[in-house]
């Protein structure tokens, strides 16, 4: 029997007593004037990001280096093709997984190797044994070096996380400034009908659980490559 009404009842009863506003007991080093209304614009306090594309690209590249993400700006489709083929060869890919999309179709054609498609029901074991998952994305975020994917832009939930190498095909106009911009973009794009899963991916999978030492490839992809066209 769901306890919805009892819980809501207890909450309403509890909230009849007013709680003090936050920050009143803060020490001198932490004291900040309280705001009239709760803030909605965090940009002035979050890490700064430059306005121009070049500044964003530079910041994204810097963050990628730190995260061990392989981030590459490519001039055109020809260069993308060359780089993809080289990557596939260097990594020894035998089978890739991908979804239908403008750039992913191009990539699939360029690579010409066995493929698992995740546009409709697929065999999990086939996906698990793929060497790479190639997806598009909704956005890149310069502030954090992140990629925004959803089930709609990246071929479902598992494609971007199960294969050991995740390759993202992005466009320059997708490189956004910061997290506030990323969430605003998601709202604009999907506000009336959200995909069931959206994800902000920041670097290859990692863990610090053993002596707080960083190790890549804990469960998700060990490698993340982003080609930005």
């Amino acid at each position, binding site marked *: 029997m769901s306890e919805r009404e009892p819980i809501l009842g207890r909450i309403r009863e509890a909230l009849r007593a007013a709680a003090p506003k936050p920050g009143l*007991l803060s*020490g*001198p*080093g932490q004291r900040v004037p309280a705001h009239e209304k709760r803030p909605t614009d965090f940009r002035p306090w979050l890490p700064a990001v430059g306005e121009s594309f070049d500044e964003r690209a530079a910041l994204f590249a810097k963050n990628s280096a730190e995260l061990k993400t392989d981030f590459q700006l490519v001039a055109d489709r020809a260069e993308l093709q060359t780089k993809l083929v080289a990557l596939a060869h260097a990594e020894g890919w035998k089978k890739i997984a991908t979804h239908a999309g403008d750039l992913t179709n191009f990539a699939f054609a360029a690579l010409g190797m066995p493929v698992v498609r995740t546009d409709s029901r697929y065999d999990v074991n086939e996906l698990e044994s793929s060497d790479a998952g190639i997806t598009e994305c909704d956005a890149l975020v310069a502030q954090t070096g992140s990629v925004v994917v959803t089930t709609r832009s990246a071929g479902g939930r598992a494609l971007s996380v199960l294969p050991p190498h995740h390759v993202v095909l992005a466009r320059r106009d997708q490189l956004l400034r910061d997290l506030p911009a990323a969430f605003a973009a998601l709202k604009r794009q999907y506000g009336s009908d959200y995909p069931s899963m959206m994800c902000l991916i920041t670097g290859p999978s990692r863990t610090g659980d053993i002596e707080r030492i960083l190790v890549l490839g804990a469960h998700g992809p060990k490698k993340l490559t982003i080609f930005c066209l």
Partner: protein
Amino acid sequence: MAQVLERLGHQVEYPEDFTCCGQPAFNSGYWDEARAVAEKVLAMYRSAEIIVGVSGSCGAMMTTFYKELFHGTPLEAEANAHAAKCWEFSDFLVTKLGVTDVGAKFPAKVTFHDGCHGLRELGLKKQPRALLAKVKGLELIEMGAAESCCGFGGTFAVKFPMISTAMGEVKCDSALKTNADYIVSCDASCLMHIQGLADRQKKPLRTMHLAEVLAKQ
């Protein structure tokens, strides 16, 4: 402290009946008993223009915790007024008077321990260091984790002595690594705890209060 303030030309008064700010009772959860002592303190200092104290923890009690102790009681306004008049010694010199050179001389290697109450409740960080910088012959060497609690914590030291001791040992180790002659702090209780531990473990550490350093000529 009295000597230093008089040296700087100030008139110092001291209500001889003052005994304690009441913090031990407050920290132990006996707020009614703490209030009984604190009420007397409020009365004692009612006519004072400025109150200067030489302890980070007593200062924090009177500046921050009196407000909490008297919240919702008839003495709330008076407690707030009292808090506004209270200054810790180093903060008073540097922030209020704008003085960093008090004419002190103390040739020694010294490291500084940031007592928790002074650091976090009163914002003491730059002030003691600014004063030490002007002491003739003194060399200040910063220790690692200077802001880490020494482990005294009032009744905590006797209620949970094993934890208190471990924290003190970590502090002593940090201090020893600097090879300083003295550990200086704004809080006598921290220093008593550190010295007590150092003496028992036969560690070559000597403690001195900031006010003692500033009084040296």
